[in-house]
C-alpha cells in the first residue's frame, strides 16, 4: 500500500506524548498569516506602527513642552524619553491583544479558519502556538520600528536599550496567550468591546504619561500588580539603564502569564473543536 506523504508525516509523531493535540507545526499558522499579510492585510499591518509614533510626537513634544523633565529615581529625564519606553510597552500590549482577541475572534467565528485547520492533521496546540507566535512576531516588528524612530529623535542613550526589543516580544507573548484564552470564551462582538474597556484604563493609569506617585498609596499598590505597569516598569528600567532585582521580577511575572495562558488556551481550543 502506498502511503501518502501527509500520512507519513503524521505517523512520525503518533504515540508520542501530546500527539493528539500537537503535530509540531506552529509554523503552518504563521506561514498562513504571512500569506494573508501579502494578499490582504499589508496596509493594516504597516499602519499599526504609526500609532505609538504619533503618540510619541504629540505627547513627547506637545505635552513635553508644557511639562519639561520628570524625575525618575533621581534622574531628570526629558518627558519624551520618559514616555518612549511606556509607549513601546503599551503598543506591544495593544498589538498582541488586538491580534489575539479581535483577529482571532473573527477567524474563529466568521471565517471558520480554525475549523478548517483542525480538520487537517494540525492539533489545537499547533494553532494556539502559531497565533501567539504571530502576535509576537508582529509585536517584535513594531518594536524595532519604534526603536528606530526613538533613536532618530535621540531618545536612546545606551546600547542596553536594545534589550527593549526582546522585552517587547515577551510582553506580546504574555498578552497574546491570555488574550487567546479570553477569546475562546467569547460569544459575541459586544464581549470583545469589554476587552477594550479594560485596556483603556490600563493604558491611562499605569504610569504611562505620569509617575503613579500622583496617586494615594493604596491605589499605587493595586496598579503595580497590573500587567501593563509591570511591562512599563520593565521597559523604563531597560531604557534608563537601571538594572536591579525588580527586572527579574517583571520577567518572572510575564513568564507566569505565558504558562497559564498557553495551558488554558490549548484546553479551550480542544474543547471548542474536538468535542
Amino acid at each position, binding site marked *: 500500500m502506498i502511503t501518502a506523504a501527509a500520512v507519513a508525516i503524521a505517523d512520525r509523531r503518533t504515540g508520542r506524548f501530546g500527539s493528539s493535540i500537537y503535530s509540531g507545526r506552529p509554523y503552518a499558522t504563521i506561514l498562513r498569516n504571512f500569506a494573508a499579510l501579502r494578499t*490582504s*492585510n499589508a*496596509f*493594516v499591518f504597516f*499602519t*499599526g506602527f*504609526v*500609532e505609538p509614533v*504619533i*503618540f510619541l*510626537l*504629540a*505627547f513627547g*513634544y*506637545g*505635552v513635553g*513642552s*508644557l*511639562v*519639561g523633565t*520628570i524625575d525618575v529615581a533621581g534622574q531628570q529625564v526629558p518627558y519624551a524619553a520618559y514616555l518612549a519606553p511606556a509607549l513601546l510597552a503599551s503598543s506591544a500590549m495593544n498589538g498582541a491583544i488586538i491580534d489575539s482577541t479581535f483577529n482571532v475572534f473573527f477567524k474563529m467565528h466568521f471565517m471558520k479558519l480554525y475549523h478548517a485547520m483542525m480538520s487537517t492533521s494540525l492539533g489545537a496546540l499547533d494553532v494556539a502556538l502559531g497565533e501567539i507566535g504571530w502576535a509576537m512576531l508582529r509585536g517584535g516588528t513594531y518594536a524595532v520600528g519604534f526603536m528606530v524612530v526613538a533613536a532618530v529623535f535621540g531618545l536612546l542613550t545606551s546600547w542596553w536599550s536594545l534589550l527593549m526589543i526582546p522585552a517587547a516580544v515577551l510582553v506580546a507573548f504574555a498578552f497574546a496567550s491570555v488574550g487567546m484564552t479570553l477569546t475562546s470564551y467569547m460569544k459575541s462582538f*459586544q464581549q470583545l*468591546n469589554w476587552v477594550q*474597556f479594560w485596556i*483603556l*484604563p490600563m493604558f*491611562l*493609569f499605569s504610569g504611562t*504619561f*505620569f509617575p503613579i506617585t*500622583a496617586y494615594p498609596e493604596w491605589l499605587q499598590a493595586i496598579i503595580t500588580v497590573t500587567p501593563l505597569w509591570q511591562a512599563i516598569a520593565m521597559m523604563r528600567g531597560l531604557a534608563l539603564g537601571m538594572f536591579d532585582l525588580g527586572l527579574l521580577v517583571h520577567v518572572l511575572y510575564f513568564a507566569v502569564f505565558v504558562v497559564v495562558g498557553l495551558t488554558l488556551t490549548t484546553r479551550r481550543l480542544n474543547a471548542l473543536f474536538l468535542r
Partner: protein
Amino acid sequence: MTIATRIDAPVGIHGPRRGAWHVAEYRLRNMWKWRSAIISFGIGHPVLYLASIGLGVGLLVDTSSGGVDGVPYLVFLGPALLATAALQGGGDETMFPTLAGFLWNKLFYSMRATSLTGAQIADGVLLAAGFRVLFTTLTYWLVLAIFGAVSWSTAPSLVALGLLAGLAWGAVMLAATSFVKHEDGFLSLVGRLIVMPMFLFSGTFYPLDALPLAIRWVGWISPLWHATELGRWLSYGLALPWWQLAISVIYLLALAVGGLLIGRRQFERRLTS
C-alpha cells in the same frame, strides 16, 4: 380595508413624508441593543481621561508651567475632550451603519426597496447619530462639571457646540463611507491615519503652537481643532479674534451640510444602480 389607512402620509416622489424619521427610529432601536456599552463608555471615557491625563498630567503641567492659557490644565483639557467625544460619537454612528447597510448586511438595499429614498436613508442615519451625539455630549458635560473642568452655566452652549461638531464629523464620515466598495483596511485607515492623528494633533492636549509649523496645518483643517477652540472660548473665555470664531463656526456648518448633501446623492446613486 384600504391600504392608504395603514400609512401615515401619502407617498410622493420624495418618499414617505417622515421617511428619515422611520430610518432614525430603526437606528435608535439598534443602538438601544448596545445601550450598556454606550452608557458605560459614555461615562467611563471622560472619567478615565480626566482622572488620568486631566489630573495626572495636569499635576505635572501646573507645577512646571502653571497651567495653560492662564487656567489649570484640567480646565484647558475639558472642552477638547468634550469635542473629541462628540466627533467620535457622530463618526461611529454614521460610519458603522453605512458600512453595514451597504456591505455587511446590505440593509439599505431592502430599505430602498420600500418607498424610502436614498436621501431619506442618509438623513435618517445622520439624524439618529445626532441623538447619540446629544446623549454623549450631555453625559460628558456632566462629568466635566463634576470634575470642576467646566462651570455649570456652560451647559447649553457646550452641548450645542458638541452637537454641531458631532453632526459635522458624522456627515463627513457618512459621505466618505458611502463610497467604500470593500471594507479591507478602511476601518484601520480611518482609525489610524485620520482619527488618531486628528485626536493628537488638534491642540487637544497642548496648544497647537507647541507643534512645529510644519505639522500645525493638521490642526487647521481638523474639525476637532475648530470645535476645541470654540469650546475653550465658550468655557473659559479663551481670547480669540472674531474672524477666527466666524471661520470655525462656518467651517463646521459647511462640513455638516456639505457632507450630508454628498452623502444623500451617493446613497441614492448607489442604491439605484
